[in-house]
């Protein structure tokens, strides 16, 4: 089974430029600079149907094609390495293990949109990744892959590493741009899209680390190869992960479309002894629960959506039968309420409200009216009603928990206690 993104990565080692080149690295860049026009690169990526790995699954080539290529002045490319979605730890693997793959992907992508400046926006906690990327960037400069006149092609690209100072919102692409500009990480209204008016008001592309890391491979090996990797219509492999009470939590690069069951049982080694599977968030904290009934769902954008959730980041968090689903979503809503930027009303005020209700339920003080409030919030904090996707994301686990684990919620109300035992907060 091919694992183009991760096969070169060895545990505990970060691939340096020599190692990366030995594994075929920077060949794609040479090819692009020598043989392809920017438009051809975009067309290729579009044709491959690579869908963004940051969570939303938007076509990468399509996104690039919105950049006004004839506009004068600087353009920017940003790698979104903010990975702060609870339950998600996939980009870390790529960042720590093979930073050059990301850098090469960024250079090619920047070439495609003719960006002259690029940034890696890295979350603060990834200290090791920061070290490796910093090292890799200077290696790439030294080798002539970055800087002026790259490989004699006339194409220039600067690359900088920016490490964040907290806040999940920084992962949202427009908030990320504000943060890069030295502002509060509040999102921006779209339109205008960043492709037109992004960083410092200039055309900008933001892509996820995993998305960008794929670019060199698609360039080298082509569209058919990329699509052949997958079991489904959404091409390529995907880094999947599982955490929670399983025997072997971890992350694996697998063909797009492996089923939840395979992930859980084959790769994660099944549930820990004495624990039963009750459900899982298939792709990070802001995706809807799926349950036993969905275990045979292929984990790709389309099928997970059809099952009523989202592929999201592809990293699954498992809920077991000893863990209180109400406490579980309380933990999530606490996170989302904390991480709301405070700009729009429903998110800023609605999320703390749901958090307080869930806490009250856990404390045995919840009422039936509280459950109605929760239902109401899941309806009213939907997409489009709030300024960005944070609050709708926050409602996904809540609404599905209310659907699949309703009896647990009601039990909290009737018994005036948490049936799973007391939690301390």
């Amino acid at each position: 089974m091919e694992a183009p993104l991760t096969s070169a990565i060895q545990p505990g080692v970060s691939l340096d430029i020599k190692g990366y080149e030995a594994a075929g690295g920077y060949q794609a860049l040479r090819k692009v600079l020598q043989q392809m026009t920017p438009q051809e690169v975009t067309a290729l990526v579009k044709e491959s149907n690579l869908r963004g790995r940051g969570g939303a699954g938007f076509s990468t080539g399509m996104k690039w094609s919105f950049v006004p290529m004839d506009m004068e002045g600087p353009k920017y490319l940003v790698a979104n390495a903010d990975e702060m979605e609870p339950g998600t730890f996939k980009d870390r693997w790529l960042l720590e293990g093979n930073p050059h793959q990301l850098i090469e992907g960024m250079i090619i992508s920047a070439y495609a949109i003719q960006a002259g400046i690029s940034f890696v926006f890295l979350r603060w906690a990834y200290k090791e990744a920061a070290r490796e990327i910093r090292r890799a960037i200077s290696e790439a400069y030294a080798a002539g892959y970055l800087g002026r006149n790259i490989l004699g092609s006339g194409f220039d690209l600067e690359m900088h590493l920016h490490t964040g100072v907290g806040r999940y919102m920084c992962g949202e692409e427009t908030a990320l741009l504000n943060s890069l500009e030295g502002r509060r990480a509040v999102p921006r209204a779209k339109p205008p899209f960043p492709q037109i008016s992004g960083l410092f008001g200039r055309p900008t592309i933001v892509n996820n680390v995993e998305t960008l890391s794929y670019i060199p491979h698609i360039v080298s090996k082509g569209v058919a190869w990329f699509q052949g990797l997958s079991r489904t219509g959404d091409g390529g492999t995907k880094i999947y992960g599982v955490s929670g009470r399983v025997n072997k939590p971890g992350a694996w690069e697998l063909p797009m479309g492996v089923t939840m069951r395979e992930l859980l049982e084959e790769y994660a080694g099944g549930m820990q002894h004495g624990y039963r599977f009750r459900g899982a968030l298939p792709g990070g904290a802001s995706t809807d629960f799926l349950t036993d009934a969905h275990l045979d769902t292929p984990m790709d954008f389309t099928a997970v959506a059809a099952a009523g959730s989202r592929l999201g980041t592809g990293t699954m968090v498992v809920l077991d039968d000893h863990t209180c689903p109400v406490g579980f979503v309380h933990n999530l809503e606490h996170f989302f309420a904390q991480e709301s930027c405070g700009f729009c009303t429903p998110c800023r005020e609605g999320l703390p409200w749901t958090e307080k209700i869930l806490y009250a339920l856990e404390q045995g003080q919840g009422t039936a009216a509280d459950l109605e409030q929760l239902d109401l919030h899941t309806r009213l904090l939907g997409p489009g009603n709030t300024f960005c996707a944070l609050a709708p994301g926050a409602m996904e686990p809540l609404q599905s928990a209310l659907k699949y684990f309703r009896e647990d919620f009601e039990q909290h109300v009737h018994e005036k206690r948490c049936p799973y035992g007391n939690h301390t907060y």
Partner: protein
Amino acid sequence: MATIHIDGKSYEVKEGRNLLETCLSLGLDLPYFCWHPALGSVGACRQCAVKSFKDGQDTKGKLIMSCMEPVKDQLRISISDKEAAAFREQVIGWLMTNHPHDCAVCDEGGSCHLQDMTVMTGHSYRNYHFTKRTYKNQYLGPFLNHEMNRCIQCYRCVRFYKDFAGGKDMDVFAAHNHVYFGRHQDGVLESEFSGNLAEVCPTGVFTDKTLQHHYTRKWDMTYAPSVCQGCGLGCNIIAGERYGSLRQITTRYNGAVNGYFLCDRGRYGYEFVNSPRRIKEVAIRGLTDTAIDTNTALQYLQDKCKPGRTIGIGSPRASLESNFVLQQLVGPDHFYLGVSDTEHDLVSLALKILRQGPVRTPSMQEAAAADAVLILGEDLLNTAPMLALSVRQAVRRQPAQEAMHTAHVLSWQDAAVREAMQDKHGPCFILHVQPTKLDEIATGAYHTAPDNIARIGFAVCRLLKAPVPEVKDLTEQEQQLAQQIADALMAAERPLVIAGYGSGCEGVLRAAANIGRALHDSGKPAMLALTTPECNSMGLEMLGGHRLESAIDAVVNGEADTVIVLENDLYRRLDKPVADRFLKHCRELVLLDHLYNATAEMATVLLPGGTFAESDGTLVNNEGRAQRFFQVFTPPGAIQESWRWLLMLAAATGNERLKHMAYLDDITRAIAQRLPAFAGIERLTPPADFRIAGQKIPREPHRYSGRTAMLADVNVSEPKPPEDEDTALSFTMEGYRGEPPSSMIPFFWWPGWNSVQSINKFQVETGGPLHDGDPGKRLIEPGSNGQHGYFMDAPEHFVPLAGHLLLIPLYHIFGSDELSVHTPAVAERMPAPYIMLCPEDAQRYQVAENHQLQIAIDGHPYTLTVKLNPAMQKGIAGVPAGMPGIGISETPVIAKI
């Protein structure tokens, strides 16, 4: 135009505006918070949600925020849609989770946008039963209270304070539901426009601190439409009274003049009306100190005011009516302008330029639409503050246009436009004797003597190909600057040149006029704004009169015995020694004024003249716009309008020119008839006999309470309310309840809209003119054939005179105006008197910071505290203009050291 469908009805509307303002302009009720007509949309509060449908078939639809939605043809929406309505109700529910529900003790109560919107959405039951978060409040200075717990996080305050008004010392802090709006640390808010926060904030976070010590609810005040007395711009205000004291000034929207805002001098400078120094009774020197009634006074004056032996001194802060009646009373030959001769020269030159030159002078809103600005010799934030706010908007024009084009966004998409334009400013050049706060937005700022500023101006004019002589000996820097300015102005579509009284230099005005003219001659729709110092400086100048100096001669030479001084403190017009000599020579000095001032001390007769709050009248602003202000309440004691005193005196002395005149309309009609320059001012507002449905327009809201009880401590039977014989306004709550003519709106209120946001119900479209046109009439339009050519003589290069300093006035928004400093809060913001020198001069005269420097003007000594400023020019010193305790009134002047 586009056709849109709202709840099944079709409307023809303008394309490209946002849906929220379109709905409001159509008269529909739709709640909102974060949007503000002057600030545009950011989509933060989510209060303005409506349902949008793809087409006629779509029944499901989706929620959209109307403020973020551009109006396009065939847009199909529903406001009444159940889901949209439920969402809007819940938005209030969310906002109220942390709001303290303290309306009963909140100053905003009764004029609160949050209350209005809460009622509008139907949110009436609280589901939230958890604890609320609380905040600490900050001390923000004497103008504003801060009560953060009431905040609904609409971000309007920071967007106004920072983005619109350029303030630096306020922001939003922290994140999630802890966001905090205030200062980095406690302290006085520095912006000259901070008071607008009280109106911009939709709830009671920022409220008027001066109102607090005589607090009255909106519904309990008696209001009148009025005009600010603070400077020459004539911003429209609403003045509110209760229990015989003036309690609050708020913005009276005027789409052409001040829009939605006021400066802090205008908003807070009102408390002189309530001052303990008010002259309330008639006083005659030598008569016993028992109160003297009106008749005694008139009898006394009858003898003293002999025709031909009586002169009148007018006032730039008195109404046109009072000045006119005085002029007619003493006869135009004996009427003198109550301003210093320098000021007269400047204002009369400005008038001449505007009347005879071909360049149009803009209203403030037109000025805000300029796309390149040149400011010559003016520290606008201190001489004409609201015009500075216009300049702030004007410098955004060019980059915003460009941004809108490249990012494909519309002007009201505020955050997007700001992002796309970054910190770019359009061309703006500021030339002044010292740095001004506005320099930060200038493309180029340059500091030099007023004469040199004029010379650069002349050079610009020549570069614009006007037939003016070349200006020799400019430094290279000055030449480059002139070229840069000329290029920027020529490249602009609507260039604006600003100058005025602040420079104290006629050469600067001439240079400005020349540049305006040169731009005009090369086919640009150029604008020329000239500031005037006081609220009726322009009106007085248009009325005409002799120079103040000649009044002194008339008295000293024994040609006149009696001097009637109208609303004026001559010690502010003349240096103290001169004023002393003049006033001592007057046999009889009659003063009609509000406050016991230095002139009052010398007066033999004091007549209590009503302030703007106690009078009706007309003022002419720097633009030549005549505007009517109305009496708010009937004052205590013998106080009445100065013109009424003077009409009484005219009757007592059998004056022919003023025969048969008794009421305001009589005077305005006479002015319009006798002085063609004022044609039309009798129609500024409907006349006194105007009625709607047979009714007058009430000054009091219909919920006015306590009328029968408020004077019960004096008399249990309710006194008859005063009648207003001069105007179509009544002093009571009874009268016509609908919309008054735009020039007579005493307060903005509409069913369901108790807050100032009700203004949208009075406008043709949001942010546009009031329904029957913005009030006021422009009396000055550019000369059509431009008989008056270019000014040819640039002043000489300024050369410091050994042993001397050229004293120039430095203006202060808080301090330079005579009346506003009687508000304790304004006085608190006033700087201490000083003389500002450059370090070199200080060294030469062997003084350092805070030392006392002795200077002499015309042989009279003055002592001032030294302040150093390296940007000051050598040979020039600045003294604060108009500030109490200095005694130097006629500047610029050469002082000997």
